[in-house]
């Protein structure tokens, strides 16, 4: 049941628009995280706009998305707008006072499943959701999106150890493996070693794929859903700042305000409006 080329093209166009809107909002408030919002774009958009059972934010049987790397919130908000869960014109209120769109996900925002911001906690929360949903007899799936730097946190590996114990085949972790964290690259800050071997040793079904290739991601997600013996993890190779040449692979663009000149250049590359 593979995704059609036509649908892939539609989603690619949606991703382009989302990148424009997310950068516009981050530029507007002169604060936020461009790099990690751009790298997670295809992963999140494919899940939320195509794959997940997500008709209403209060449907108990809905699939759950946990954005554990909460600083990519703007990309989540843009996806929630597309779902119709948030007002179409709210992106501009990002990070402003009295806003629905907090700097990091807050449950005041319809469609946000659980708060995020302190890194390292999302996989455990996703595990809890997977256990609860299974107990309730729902066939819902839980997707947890993790940063690669976030994998430094011990709690991630505590969940990595427990989820296979509980046989959570309704849980899939996706690592946004862009190779860069805040102070520098993974190798500079904390080398991750052989990630695939680590997850496999903890008892996970490990799937590797390109994280900006929608068809490849879709196939990886199919494989995760088909695996019944326990949880799956998709190691999605991404580029931090993907889509804007001068941001790509640069730790400096992790959490930097976008100046006017850089914004204009970014919009030119993405085909967005410069003001």
């Amino acid at each position: 049941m593979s995704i059609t080329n036509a649908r892939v093209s539609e989603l690619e166009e949606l991703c382009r628009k989302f990148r424009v809107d997310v950068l516009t909002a981050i530029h507007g408030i002169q604060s936020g995280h461009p790099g990690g919002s751009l790298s997670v774009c295809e992963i999140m958009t494919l899940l939320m706009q195509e794959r997940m059972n997500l008709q209403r934010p209060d449907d108990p049987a809905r699939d759950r998305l946990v954005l554990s790397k909460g600083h990519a919130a703007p990309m989540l908000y843009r996806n929630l707008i597309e779902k119709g869960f948030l007002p179409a014109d709210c992106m501009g209120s990002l990070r402003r006072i009295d806003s629905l769109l907090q700097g990091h996900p807050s449950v005041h925002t319809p469609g946000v499943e659980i708060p995020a911001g302190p890194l390292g906690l999302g996989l455990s929360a996703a595990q809890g959701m997977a256990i609860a949903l299974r107990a309730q007899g729902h066939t819902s799936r839980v997707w947890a999106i993790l940063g690669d730097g976030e994998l430094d946190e011990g709690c991630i590996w505590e969940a990595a150890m427990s989820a296979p114990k509980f046989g959570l085949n309704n849980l899939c972790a996706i690592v946004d493996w862009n190779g860069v964290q805040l102070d520098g690259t993974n190798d500079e800050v904390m080398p991750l070693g052989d990630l695939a071997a680590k997850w496999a040793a903890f008892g996970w079904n490990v799937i590797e794929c390109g994280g900006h290739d929608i068809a490849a991601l879709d196939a990886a997600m199919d494989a995760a859903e088909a695996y019944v013996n326990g949880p799956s993890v998709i190691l999605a190779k991404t580029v931090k700042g993907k889509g804007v040449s001068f941001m790509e692979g640069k730790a400096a663009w992790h959490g930097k305000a976008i100046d006017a000149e850089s914004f204009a250049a970014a919009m030119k590359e993405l085909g967005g409006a410069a003001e």
Partner: protein
Amino acid sequence: MKAIREVYGEALVELAKDNDKILVLDADLSGSTKSGMFGKAYPERFFNMGIAESNMVATAAGMASCGMIPFVNTFAVFLTTLGLISARGQVCYGNLNVKFGGAYCGMSDAFDGSTHHACEDIAVMRTLPNMRVLVPSDTASSKALTRVAAELEGPVYLRLSRDVYPDLYSEDEVFEPGKGKIVRDGTDVTVVACGILVHKALEAAEKLAEEGISVRVVDMLSIKPIDRELLVRCAEETGCIVSAEEHSIYGGLGSAVAEALADAGVPVPMQFVGIQDVFTESGPYAQLLAKYGIDAEGVAVAVRKALSKKK
């Protein structure tokens, strides 16, 4: 006038020059906390632990147990939550010589929102036996208290802002643990403040003077041990107290002041300026301070209320 975090980064580099026991650790925020300045100057004495705060603090505990003086750094909110298990169970219980640099205190990481604001850190750290809690309020005090922290034996928590504070003290001012300072004299009421609220209190005092209210402002740079003698004197001389802090009204400076006065047997009418037991939010820093009532206006309102309860 520099951002407090810059001053702190420079102070660490300075300290290391004549003390080779100083080691610095960070948890993938060295560009933000400015511990990275130390990392550049002394790469062999700097340890980036990745995004792993528990590991960082427990590692520092081990270093301290072998005679080193480690400074651990990350945002105050993560240091006093993820770092707490070791801070309590190893560092404080073992009275180990670990120094905690709590960066981006209060709401100073304004836009990131509630998850990144530290509004409980004073309360958390203050209750740990052996821990000292110091809060600088300008460039000179930030620099000096970083040195004080290094020279004190045992655990110290330094509460540091992301922001720029106006200067209050000269370079040669002396700061001691357990000592606050009167930064403006007055007779009707004392505002006991720390950090950015010292500046807001001074601003309020200026305005209130126009209404004929004489406000004394105390900068309580040492919350633990607290300057009990000074507090008692202020209570007796001005007859009412307002505490002002960028922190929850529970468990922080205000609580420490009330505890000290109650215990000394000189309870006076008191008002508490701080976060009113709510989660904060994202926004420009000044707007947040105003919304949560921890600006000059908030201090002024509390002063009038305290005065109205004074006999």
